[in-house]
């Protein structure tokens, strides 16, 4: 593996970890602060001012930003499977925090996800598609 390929792979793993953790935590707070029903359109706005919902939304903004950064160099077909480790974390968090039992079916699902993620993140390069040259004004910025 060339130095450049190793650099992109390591950078992708770090960024994917941020994407995964912010998504799991964000969805947890969003769901825990959500009322049973949102009867009027205005309720969709006012619910955003509940503290737990607001924290969830902030974490989901971090999720979106880190995911966009990851997509600036990595394939979408790499990002999608790799970031699905989040489903495994949700299941394990349910067991540790809420003492939910993990059934045999869910353990099978966890094993399938981890195998798939290991295949995609370990055996395929994050970037396979031809990249256009950056726009001239972009080339100088952010270096």
């Amino acid at each position, binding site marked *: 593996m060339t130095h450049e390929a190793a650099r992109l792979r390591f950078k992708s793993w770090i960024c994917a970890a941020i994407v995964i953790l912010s998504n799991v935590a964000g969805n947890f707070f969003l769901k825990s602060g959500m009322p049973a029903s949102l009867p009027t359109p205005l309720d969709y706005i006012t619910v955003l001012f509940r503290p737990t919902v607001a924290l969830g939304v902030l974490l989901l903004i971090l999720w979106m930003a880190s995911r*966009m*950064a990851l*997509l600036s160099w990595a394939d979408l077909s*790499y990002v999608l*499977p790799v970031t699905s480790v989040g489903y495994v974390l949700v299941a394990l968090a349910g067991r540790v925090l809420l003492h939910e039992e993990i059934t045999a079916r869910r353990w099978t*699902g966890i094993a399938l996800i981890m195998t798939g993620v290991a295949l995609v993140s370990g055996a*395929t390069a994050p970037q396979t598609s031809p990249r256009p040259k950056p726009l001239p004004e972009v080339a100088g910025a952010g270096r």
Partner: protein
Amino acid sequence: MKWVLIAAIVAATSAGEILQAMGMRQHGEIRDFRPGAIRRAVALLARNWMVGASVVAMAISFFAYLGLLTLTELSFAVPATAVTYVLETVLAKYILKERVSAVRWAGAVLVICGVALVSL
């Protein structure tokens, strides 16, 4: 109603993520994570129409998902919306011209089956 919401979520998420990937790819690799550089990148990205359109599509998807969560449990909402994984991987191959190798397909299929098993 819930199937209408799921259809809207799948369509809006897929369109939004393909547009986002195209826009971010056009911007090029983000290498500098200092606050000033991130501000400049955000200012540049805000003027990228594909990124703008992706934000609109994902906002539609987000509010449709909030609505879905009031109708159903996560254990239904998550696997139902995981259909987007299949659709987006196909679109990534044909629209984004990514080389989806046999290994990557195998990994993606394992993940999709695993997500369904974990959340059903």
